[in-house]
């Protein structure tokens, strides 16, 4: 079994860029999540030791920010934009309808995102990083089914 240090070797350049200093914590967490998909307990322990920070401080900081995740991601992600422009054009209903849909069967994790600033496409969803404009629940479901084919 590889040691923790070997296990997270890919993170080393990022840690070095920040001089293993505490103030790099959020940058390191961002990079770690990009590299490993989520912030596992061993990963968080590794980061805390490398930055010489108390575990509770690392956990407290990571859990403060919505984009950090502590469990692995599903194969696809579908984020409903809940900004104002989307809200006035029906985002709440869209989110409710998608919540009721069997998305887990499609390996899709449903979430919401604050305004992504492309409001002329409202209401919109962001699927695996791509923006789908002017959608309703049926259209989203149909296209999500396509993803798995």
């Amino acid at each position, binding site marked *: 079994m590889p040691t923790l240090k070997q296990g997270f070797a890919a993170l080393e350049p990022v840690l070095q860029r920040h001089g293993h200093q505490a103030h790099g914590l959020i940058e390191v967490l961002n990079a770690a999540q990009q590299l490993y998909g989520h912030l596992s307990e061993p990963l968080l322990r590794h980061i805390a030791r490398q930055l010489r920070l108390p575990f509770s401080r690392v956990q407290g900081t990571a859990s403060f920010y919505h984009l950090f995740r502590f469990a692995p991601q599903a194969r696809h992600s579908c984020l409903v934009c809940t900004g104002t422009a989307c809200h006035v054009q029906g985002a709440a209903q869209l989110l409710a309808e998608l919540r009721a849909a069997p998305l887990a069967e499609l390996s899709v994790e449903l979430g919401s*995102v*604050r305004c992504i*600033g492309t409001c002329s496409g409202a209401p919109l969803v962001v699927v695996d990083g791509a923006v789908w404009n002017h959608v309703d629940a049926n259209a989203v479901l149909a296209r999500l089914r396509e993803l798995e084919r």
Partner: protein
Amino acid sequence: MSSCLRLCTAASCRSRGAMALLQSSDRPVKEVGCLGPCSEGPLAAEGAQLLSLKPAEGEPLAPSLGAALAGSRAISADDPFLKLQRRLVLARCGVVDPGCIDDALAQGAYQQLQAVLAANNPSAVIDTVRRSGLRGRGGAGYPTGLKWATVAAMPSDQKVVVCNADEGDPGAFMDRTLMEGDPHTLLEGMAIAAFAVGAAQGFIYIRAEYPLAIERLRRAIAAAEARGWLGTAIGGSRFSFGIELRVGAGAYVCGEETALIHSIEGRRGVPRPRPPYPAEHGVFGLPTLINNVETFGNIPPLLRLGVEAYGAGTKVFSLTGHVQRSGVLEVPMGTPLRTIVETMGGGAPPGRQIKAVQTGGPSGGCIPASALNTPVDYDSLKALGTIMGSGGMVVMDDTTNMVDIAAFFIAFSREESCGKCIPCRSGTVQLEMLLRKLLERRASAADLTQLEALCHTVADASLCGLGQSAPKPVLSTLRHFRGDYLELLEPGEVVR
């Protein structure tokens, strides 16, 4: 102006298929930032001619750029959306290739920085900014020159300049537009500010929800460093200034300056009481100048034009919601709201009427249609119970229930509350419970009284701007749309 075809590949047009068009092109195309009326996207431009490549309703996007151009619709330069703008901050946006510093340099980037360094008179720069009357474009409207002078006067030999690019108000994307479309104007503005206040270290704190802006800023910073416009001995002078990008991780409250400082320092984005102000005690305890993207973006054009020609300046807005034409526009400060919403935006969709315009996001309020003649400036909007805010402008038509809108914003503030102080942490929850009770028609007149009282307590007692302004959407809708609330009341006392 280049006669080469320009195609907007910023986030909004990208979401409408601009990248596919770009890749399908067999002719030279210049990638540019936002051209303005996003709802007509994908957008292209040839010289001064703007072209909408938007397919007809229900049709798919054309398979190639050539086909799209063949079926394009020209948007006349006389179109009010374009004609009534005064593009100062966004002057190069949509014209310059944001990924190419040579293009930016050819169009005047870093010339003001060069002039400032040559004159070598920091206080003259601050004096120009002060005399221009420029106020912070992030929302609060603090006089920029005064802020710069305060930081410049701090005795420390190490200072920091921070750009607040945590544009979090839902429905606001002015800063994203500038960062994606013309990042060098922002970098130049920051460098001039750093020279004026005596800082060598800079940070741009940007929200993670803007991946394209992050990518373009990274490239722009590297290019500026390579050309000697950032780094040591800038422009051959003794001035050194470096910029580090700090990416957020999904926390609206980090737009509050003390929370932003904590986040840059790798901590929970929790605000602290002021004083001490960041000018005195900011990032790593150093005197720190914090301005937002658009404020820095104003600096190069201001110095280029001089105080008189700059005049009252401009404000960039993102116009969205129930409006025929949405997008980004930059108008002279003081333009009447009606001009923006009806003349430029085309008003409400056919058959509907404008009910309200929301400005200032979760910290702002709703302006009733009856007040559309109000000029858009800091004080006029404040008098209406809202704020200028960062520039998000969401139009709502007569199908909108204002209590629902108030609940939407309170839910936003509840989710984004950092949790440090109790009035905001728990007060926003109780406010939302009261609004839901109203929306479910279970509320009594006493509940409405309690709603108002609690709004005032949360506004008075919260620690930071987020909590202090969280009740504004409720108070402003209560003020202008009280009927929407009264309609939801049950007659007499209600027993659940």
